[in-house]
């Protein structure tokens, strides 16, 4: 056997198979094992799976992840969409600057961002101080920090660049003459938007929704550090089952369920967005 360029793919394949495929296959295996005397015993037990499916707590936590993902997508779209359309109208030099401005915050670490938002939202923080100075409130708004409000604001902040970028890329490919034609034929701006822009940018919107949903629903740190008492997540529960409770079968089954729900949820949301685009296009045809 002679060496060719193709053999250069081997290191990556080995790393990914050992580091990613194998651990996930082992999750499947551990999920049907049993725990006896603090030891994992090979078995074919469905106990952990029935636990995950029947337990109200687990179902609640997985539902919560899904809701978190959807809320974040819904928070991002109304800002990202007009922003992306604005960015397509800039000239080439400003587009370059726009891209850097959009992407640079992503390079700051998760913990730096969470930390900074804690200062902004705290009871003596920027938002409360401003509202107080303006005379809008007397007492600081406690609900801003360590609450679902903080969690979703920061999740939306984290994902806004991804969502904007995805819509922006697809909006760049829209032929401007189509919009002009629609306007010439008497379409009002909103009609031109709904029947031309929206269907043509639906793929970008779907990609953005897919990424945002997966990232937000699978996030553990933001709810944990900013969510306060509302910060329990399925991920933290898995960590707990794995570490303290030494219930690896349930931890594995819950992790696989979460993984499945996240990916199916992301695909469904992306498909729904695409369908919306097609319906709109159908109306105009």
């Amino acid at each position, binding site marked *: 056997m002679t060496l060719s360029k193709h053999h250069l793919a081997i290191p990556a394949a080995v790393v990914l198979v050992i580091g*990613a495929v194998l651990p996930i296959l082992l999750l499947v295996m551990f999920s049907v094992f049993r725990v006896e005397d603090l030891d994992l015993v090979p078995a074919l037990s469905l106990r952990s799976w029935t636990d995950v499916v029947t337990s109200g707590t687990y179902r609640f936590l997985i539902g919560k992840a899904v809701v978190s993902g959807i809320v974040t997508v819904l928070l991002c779209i109304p800002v990202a969409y007009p922003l992306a359309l604005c960015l397509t109208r800039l000239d080439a030099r400003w587009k370059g600057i726009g891209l850097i401005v959009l992407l640079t*915050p992503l390079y700051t670490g998760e913990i730096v961002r969470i930390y900074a938002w804690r200062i902004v939202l705290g009871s*003596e*923080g*920027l938002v409360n101080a401003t509202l107080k100075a303006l005379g809008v409130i007397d007492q600081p708004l406690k609900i801003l920090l360590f609450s679902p409000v903080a969690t979703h604001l920061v999740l939306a902040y984290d994902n806004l660049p991804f969502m904007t970028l995805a819509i922006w890329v697809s909006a760049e490919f829209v032929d401007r003459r189509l919009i002009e034609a629609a306007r010439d034929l008497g379409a009002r701006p909103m009609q031109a938007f709904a029947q031309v822009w929206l269907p043509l940018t639906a793929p970008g919107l779907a990609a953005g929704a897919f990424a945002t949903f997966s990232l937000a629903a699978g996030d553990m740190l933001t709810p944990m550090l900013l969510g306060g008492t509302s910060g329990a997540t399925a*991920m933290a529960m898995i960590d707990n089952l794995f570490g303290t409770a030494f219930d690896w079968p349930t931890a594995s089954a819950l992790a696989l369920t979460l993984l499945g729900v996240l990916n199916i949820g992301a695909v469904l949301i992306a498909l729904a967005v695409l369908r919306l685009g097609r319906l709109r296009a159908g109306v105009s045809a």
Partner: protein
Amino acid sequence: MSSRILLAAVTAFLYLPVAVLVVFSFNASEVMAFPLSGFTWHWYGVLANNDNFWNGFVASLLIAQPVGLLGTLIALATALALADRRPLRGRMVLIGLLLIPFLVPKSVLSIAQAMIMSRVGIPRGATVLILAQTLMVLPFTTALIASVLVRLDPRLEEAARDLGALPWQAFRRVTLPQLKAAIGAAYSVAVILSLSDLAISMFLSGRTQPLSLIVASQFRRELTPDLNAMQVVVLAVTVLLVTVSELLRRRQTKAQTIPFDIQPAAALGHRA
């Protein structure tokens, strides 16, 4: 006009937390609250004497370097295999493998990895953390290098081969110089992703304490302004890395430099 307001508002929103962080690191008060109390370097002095933070910072940097090197080298090899003109067998399988780190949340993958390691008896610590982070950066670094590689003119390397260069020589003297910037950018992206990671470190770092982990453990207690100063230092290092990689990328797009000694080969390639 209204679009300018939107652009300005979003920019303000995106940079607000960072700005607040920087402002409070120079604020002459123990409490992080408005109104501000005046300018001081004090917290940077306090930071300089906090061994705990510095050890974490150094640990993070020491972990990020091998992640950068490994992540870039493996990515370069993978990109070369993917971009080869003879289509790679199992190409889609490899691309599918590269997508796994995107589709599986980092914490789920890290927990699964921790389970295997504790089963097989591999201790957690710096080595496994480096390997796990390398795996996480591979999709990004490979995409970066491959995107430049597929745009190169294959005739240049062929011409070098026609003129008697061995495959390795043709790669080193024709292809590699054109990839320099992409490799530099991949390296910085890998380092930045490693520095900013918390999810993987939480499960795999063992006794090694990267900075992000130390900050996370301080988080539940009262925050102190020297922690702000530390975050600003981390931010400055990141901005420096981003700037360097961006400059590298620009230099590449401006002048696709061709080494003098292969100019004839290039001319030959263009005639073909």
